[in-house]
Structure formats: C-alpha cells, structure tokens
C-alpha cells in the first residue's frame, strides 16, 4: 500500500488534523492496520540498531574545541570594533563600495541553496561575510533576498549578485538618512570592514542597538531582516566571559538570579573519568559549588530561608578576600509538605534503550517511589512513536503497583514529545492537589523532539501550566546526548529544575537524598542583589553565574522570572573582593569620572564597617508579589582563610578547582595538590560521600596534566 501517511504516522510526523483523518481510515481498514503494525515494528527495529560509535580522536576534539573558542572570541573582538560612530561606519561603507564587484566571483563556485541561505553561505568558508547572513533566520533570509534585489537595483546594477551576503556589504549605501537601522547594519558590515582595514575610533556604546527608527521602505525591511541577531549582540555577549573585577565605586550593585542546576558538575565528572579534558564552556563554576550541600542553619521564624554570610582571605590570591553568600531553604518534613501529585513523563524512544538510560531511570525512580507517603500519588505517562498513560494516578500506599508499572517500561520507537507532555499535564491537572505539590517530571535522554508543535508553542504551554500550579522538572539521562538546551529551557519555563543523572549514585542523590530540594519548591523567582560599600571594597568579582546575571533594574521587577529554591536546598555564591585601598588589576583604563560624588551608600552609613549588604527578593511558591530580605555583612578585618568554617573552605576549594580547570586568569597559583589539601581538610560529615568523591576528581584532573599545571 503506497500511502506515505503510514510512515509519517508511525514516526509521529502527521499534524493533528491529518492524524485524526488517518486514524479514521485506519479503523476502517484491516490492511492499513497491518501495514502500520509492520511499519511500527520496523521503525522500532531501526531505532534499536546500535548507535554509531566512531568519534573524533581525543586530540582532534580538544584541538577543535579550542579553535572554535578562538574563532568565537575573534568574532566577539570584531563585533566590539564595530561599535563605531555613525560617520565612521559610513566611511566604512564607502570603503565597501568596491567589494560587491569582487565577491560574487568567489561565490559562484559555492553551491547555492535557495531555501536555506545561511547554511550554504557558510559553505563559502573564505568569506567572512557569510557570518552575517547565517545569523539571520530563515524567514528573515527571504526578506533579505527581496531587499537584496532592491539594493542591487540601486547600487550595483552592473553585476547582479545572486547571494544575499552581498546585501550586508551593499546595505549601508542605500541608507543615508535613518540613523538607527543604518548603524545597526553597519555594525555587521564592519565586521567585514574590520578584517579589511583597521579602524580606530570612538567606542560609542550601543546607542544604536536600542532605538529603531523606521525609515524608507527599503531600509525598513533591511532593518527587520537583520533584527533576529540583535539580541546576539547584546544579551548573549554579556553572558560569555567570566565575570571580571568591577570597581565598587562605579558598579556598587551586583544582581543575579540563583541557580539550582548542578548538571555541569556531573557532566565534567564524566569527561574527567573518561580521561578527557572538559571544554571550558562545559565548566560552570557556580554549578560545581552548588553540587554540594552545605550545613547552613535552618531559618528561624517564618521566612522560607536563612541567609548565611561569611568572609575570609582568598586562598588563591593573597591580599584578596572571599565572600560567601549561603542560602538554605526550609526543610519540610513529609508531614508538613502536603501531598504530592507526581506525573512521570518517560521517554521510551529507541535511543533510551541503553543501560545508562531507561534501566537507570527505572532504578532512580524506584528509589523515589520508596519514599512516598500514602497521601502522594504517582502517574506514569510515556511518549515515543505514540504516547499514553501507563499508570493512572496511584496512591503511594500501592508502591508495588507503581514499581511494577515502572519495571514494565521498555524502549522503542522514535521520539515525539509534544503529545506526551500535554497528556502528562492533563493528568496532573485532573488530579490537582490544592496546597500540595503538583509536578510533571520529564525523563529523557535529551532527544525531546517537539515534532509538529513548534517550540514557542510548547514553552507557552509550559508557562500556562506553570500559572495553573503544575510545575515541570527535567531529568536527563545518558551520555553523548545530554543537556539539550530545549530541556533546560523547558525546566526554566516550568519553574522546575534540570538535573543530569549519569550513575545510580547520582539518581539517589537527586531523587532520594535531595528529593525535597528537587521537587518541593518553597520560594520562586529568587534574586540576589549585593550592594558593595566602596569605602571597604575597591572591586569585586562574582564567581560563576555568568548566565544568570540580571540588570540591576530587574531586581525589583516582579515580572522577571528567576531561580527557585526547593525544600532543604542550599544555594551558594562566592565573590572575590579586593579591599579598598588596593589597586584593581586589569581594570579597564577609563579616566576617572568628573561628576561622580564618591560613595553615596544607601542607608547613609558610608563610614560603616559593612563590607556589603545582601538583598534577596523572592516569592512564595504560590505567590505573585515578591518579598525583600536584607542582610548586611560587617567585618572589622578580613580573617585568615584557615579560620573559616569547614563549609566555606570546601566551597572555596570547589571554586578553585573550577577556575583552574577552565584555566581562568583569576585562578591564582594553587596546585592541584593545594586544592586537594584544602578540600580534604574540610570534608565534614559528608553524607553520601560526595565530598570524598570530589577528592578523586582532583586526582583525575591532576593525572590528565592539564596545561594549567605548567603555568
């Protein structure tokens, strides 16, 4: 039977209308059912074929990642140069006038893809300009093509360049009047300019990226056609580099959202155990620090958490201080936490058929089920080629039923998540427990294919459900496929967390030891703002949290989403500080500001002994307005590192490890042995032996002889 719908249906590729229609036909035809059955079985067998195993050589891989990082850094440098004044960029445009004549000859040798220009433009590796076009979305690319026609008509009639990348070069020529779009585009084109001639000029700071002036028709459509990459130039950039020292005088406020993810640590652990150096981009120091639990005291009073500040001298940079902000969420004993309504949404696609995926997932979830009380309920939904409810909501008193259903899961078929997630939410909503915990737990190896539903629709769904009180957590399994940005995004949108489970021990840690922290949110949208007292602190640097930096205005904006804290969860952040009176190394040579009055500190105590004040904003897990908590840190002197608490010293060792591993310029001069010594002296009670395991990880890093060791 030659009906492609059979295959499309089996692979979850039909739109919902086509699917309904097909299912009607299906019901009417035995032949069709037979065909479908065979196709599903074949798809399952194909999904079961051993996955390819050939990889790059370790050296090739390391070298490649380094080169990629260099290229990105070079792009960033070019983009910086680009922030020229308008007259200069017009001058640049004039220089470019000649280029379109040259470029097309180069392009004519590269194969063209009319419907996917960014990519085929990229195939022309010699042209720096290709980077410009590839940044533009497909939709935009079409527009670009249209505008390119316009440009060609006015600017380069002699030879009609077929390729959109010439647009970027031509563009500044057309636009003489409307300033903002012109400059914005000029930013991009002078990326090319940068490689042709060297400009020196003012570093006009991004006034262009803000305003959007709508000019003549062609410049308007041009402006739109480059718009998608605008946020690349702004937000994405801020997040890339490790935080540098900021002078407290000019930047007294440091604002960030808390981060409860820990996936980076387990991921890096996998690299080291495999004898590979983890790429710097995989090392998120704050996730390292937060992988470990610290013994901060329970909150006193009604507040959801305690804030614990400590300061000592830095173990890796003499003369500097280290400040720790430690937050502890209130522990909720099972009797206080209200009933849990959990819906596991399990990916049972073919790729999950591997010992470190579905079997590990079953084992981990079994541990969680063991700890449920009779009030709690669990339901299990699966998704693959099709989705369905494997276990209706079942009370925690019927553990054997739940576990039997878990054990019966088997993998096969391709992944199609969107139907499954709808089903899971529906189940959670039908069984909604007021005053309890309502959560969908998505378990997958990362191939969360949203299929026909586009991604924004899916995030919208998750945000809608979040408003209705059903949250989403994501558990990632398996190697080589992990940490899909989609998954992390989904967990973020769903007020949930994202954990990566690579071993039974990790499953135990996330789902049994820290079940409260993983599942029971006690405060959401938690933001931290630290105000430094310039009278005491010359400069400061936040360790990690690069992706979580907020604008200072976001702190009081309740609409800004931020991180969540679970029951019993601890969140730790470290700042390096340079005490007042000491020089700030590497400070950008900006001339002193003329009109800035020194040190207006909020509560009028510039002379106070406070180093800083930590302000926390949070919302109750079911609230919409935030509350504010303020804790000052006063210290006459900065005490020596050796006298700091165990937790403090251990966190410092972990931070030092992360910095050294990523070869941070701020890593100081500790050797692996030094770091290990600090950690060994601060193991504490170490339930779960996670700290002891850290010692072996240092050992592994040392044996790899990372280049950092030679410095």
């Amino acid at each position, binding site marked *: 039977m*030659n*009906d492609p719908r059979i*295959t499309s249906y089996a*692979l979850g590729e039909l739109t919902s209308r086509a699917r309904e229609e097909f299912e009607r036909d299906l019901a009417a035809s035995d032949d069709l059912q037979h065909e479908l059955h*065979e*196709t599903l*079985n*074949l798809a399952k*067998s*194909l999904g*079961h*074929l*051993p*996955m*390819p*195993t*050939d*990889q*790059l050589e370790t050296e090739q*891989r390391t070298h*490649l*990642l380094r*080169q990629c990082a*260099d*290229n990105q850094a070079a792009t960033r440098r070019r983009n910086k140069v680009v922030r020229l004044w308008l007259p200069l960029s017009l001058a640049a445009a004039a220089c470019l006038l000649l280029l379109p004549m040259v470029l097309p000859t180069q392009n004519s040798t590269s194969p063209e893809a009319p*419907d*996917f220009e*960014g990519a*085929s433009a*990229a195939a022309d590796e010699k042209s720096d300009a*290709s*980077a410009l076009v*590839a*940044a*533009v*979305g*497909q939709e935009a690319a079409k527009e670009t093509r249209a505008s390119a026609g316009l440009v060609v008509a006015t600017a380069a009639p002699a030879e009609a360049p077929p390729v959109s990348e010439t647009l970027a070069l031509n563009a500044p020529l057309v636009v003489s009047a409307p300033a903002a779009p012109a400059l914005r585009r000029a930013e991009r084109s002078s990326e090319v300019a940068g490689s042709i001639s060297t400009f020196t000029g003012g570093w006009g700071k991004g006034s262009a990226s803000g305003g959007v002036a709508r000019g003549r028709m062609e410049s308007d459509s041009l402006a739109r056609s480059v718009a*998608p*990459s605008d946020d*690349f130039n702004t937000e*994405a950039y801020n997040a*890339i580099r490790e935080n540098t020292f900021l002078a407290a005088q000019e930047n007294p406020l440091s604002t960030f*959202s808390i981060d409860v993810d820990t996936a980076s640590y387990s991921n890096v652990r996998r690299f080291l155990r495999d004898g590979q150096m983890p790429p710097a*981009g*995989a090392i998120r120091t704050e996730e390292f620090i937060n992988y470990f639990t610290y013994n901060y005291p329970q909150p006193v009073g009604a507040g959801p958490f305690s804030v614990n500040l400590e300061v000592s001298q830095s173990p890796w940079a003499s003369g500097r201080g280290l400040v720790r902000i430690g937050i502890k969420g209130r522990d909720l004993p099972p009797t206080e936490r209200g009933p849990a309504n959990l819906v596991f949404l399990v990916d049972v696609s073919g790729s999950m058929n591997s010992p470190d995926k579905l079997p590990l997932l079953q084992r981990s979830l079994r541990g969680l089920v063991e700890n449920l009380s009779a009030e709690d309920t669990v339901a299990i939904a699966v998704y693959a080629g099709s989705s369905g409810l494997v276990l209706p909501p079942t009370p925690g008193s019927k553990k054997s039923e739940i576990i039997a259903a878990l054990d019966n899961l088997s993998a*096969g078929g*391709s992944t199609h998540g969107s139907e499954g997630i709808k089903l899971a939410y529906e189940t959670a909503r039908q069984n909604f427990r007021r005053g309890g915990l309502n959560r969908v737990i998505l378990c997958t190896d990362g191939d969360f294919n949203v299929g026909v539903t586009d991604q924004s629709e899916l995030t919208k769904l998750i945000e809608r459900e979040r408003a209705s009180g059903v949250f989403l957590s994501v558990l990632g399994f398996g190697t*080589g*496929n*992990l*940490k*899909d*940005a989609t998954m*992390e*995004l989904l967990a*973020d949108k769903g007020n949930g967390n994202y954990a990566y489970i690579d071993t039974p021990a990790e499953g135990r840690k996330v789902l049994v030891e820290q079940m409260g922290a993983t599942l029971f949110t006690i405060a959401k949208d938690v933001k931290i703002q630290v105000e430094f007292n310039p009278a005491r602190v010359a400069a400061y640097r936040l360790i990690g949290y690069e*992706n*979580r930096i907020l604008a200072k205005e976001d702190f009081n904006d309740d609409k*800004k*989403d931020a991180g969540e804290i679970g029951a019993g969860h601890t969140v730790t952040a470290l700042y390096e500080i340079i005490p007042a009176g000491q020089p700030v190394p590497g400070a950008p040579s900006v001339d002193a500001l003329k009109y800035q009055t020194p040190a207006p500190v909020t509560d009028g105590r510039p002379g106070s002994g406070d180093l800083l004040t930590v302000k926390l904003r949070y919302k109750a897990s079911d609230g919409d307005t935030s509350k504010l908590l303020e804790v000052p840190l006063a210290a006459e002197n900065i005490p020596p590192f050796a006298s700091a608490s165990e937790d403090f010293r251990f966190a410092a060792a972990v931070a030092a490890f992360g910095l050294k591993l990523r070869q941070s310029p701020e890593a100081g001069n500790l050797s692996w042995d030094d770091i290990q010594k600090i950690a060994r002296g601060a193991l504490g009670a170490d339930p779960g032996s996670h700290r002891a395991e850290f010692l072996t990880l240092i050992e592994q890093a040392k044996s790899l002889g990372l280049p950092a060791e030679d410095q």
Partner: protein
Amino acid sequence: MKRMTPEQIITEALDRYERPLISYAREITGDLESARDAVQETFLRLSRQDVAALEPRLRAWLFLVCRNCALDHRRKVVRFTDDGIDDRQASEDPSPDASAMAAEEGGRLRQMVARLPEQQRELVKLKFEAGLSYKEMGDALKISVSHVGVELHTALQTLRREWRRENPEPVTP
C-alpha cells in the same frame, strides 16, 4: 531565562551530534578519516557563525553543512584520484563490524539499509540515528517535507518487503 554562551552551544552540539555526524559523513565519503575531517570542518564553520541566532535550527544546519563538507571531500577524491569511485563504493559494502554481526537481525537490517538508494539511505540515518524531524531533514537535504515523507516511506516499504522475503514470519522487533 538561562542562555548558553556560544561556546557552550558548540560544545554541547559536539557532544550530542559528533557520532551521528561522523556516521552520516562516512555514509557520503566512505571512509572514517574524511568523515572526521568533514565533521571538524563543520564545527569550524559553526564557530564562525552567530551561534546563538543559529541555535533554534542548529541540528538541520549541522547536517546540511556536514553534508556539504563531505560532498566536497568526495568530489576531491573523485577529481584527484583515478580510483575515487572505488573508494565511494566501499561504503556500500557491509563494513567489517557489520559483517561480524551479520548473523544477527540488526546486521541484516543494516545491510538492507546499505542497499537502499543514496538519498533514502541518508534519510534513514538522519531519522533513526540523528532523530531529525521531517522538516529538519528537508532543510538538511534541501528537499521538501512532503518529498521527505515519500522517500522515507519508500525506504521503509523496501525494507519491509526485503525483510518479509528473508523472514516469512511477520516483522518482529
């Protein structure tokens, strides 16, 4: 609200797609070394792009560019060596580890896949090894989504037919 840095996106893309990309490139080039070259070239090109803007369609982009790189390789081989064609055909024979497991069902299935026409073979790999959607496959191979559907369906029809011929019993997983 959390954004990955371009470096993170690149690293994670390499983590996730290294193996399927190498396997896919090898389908085209016929040998592992050129497949590795093609994949390295793909990521170098990626690193010169606006990675953040590319991210939503990264997977299709990677396979498209990797395909171009692999095709370049193949063209070079054909152009510069006399027996480039032989090199090409090598990939259609079962690879050594495929014949080792030829006794098993999986091995036979693999051989059947290897006998499919080139485009269908690529689609099967993209779907079942790399997990691309029809839309992504269409983007990567520069063909329409409906064409993807028809080709993949034809491929599966062929596989089912051959399977039935070898196994009188209905297909079992």
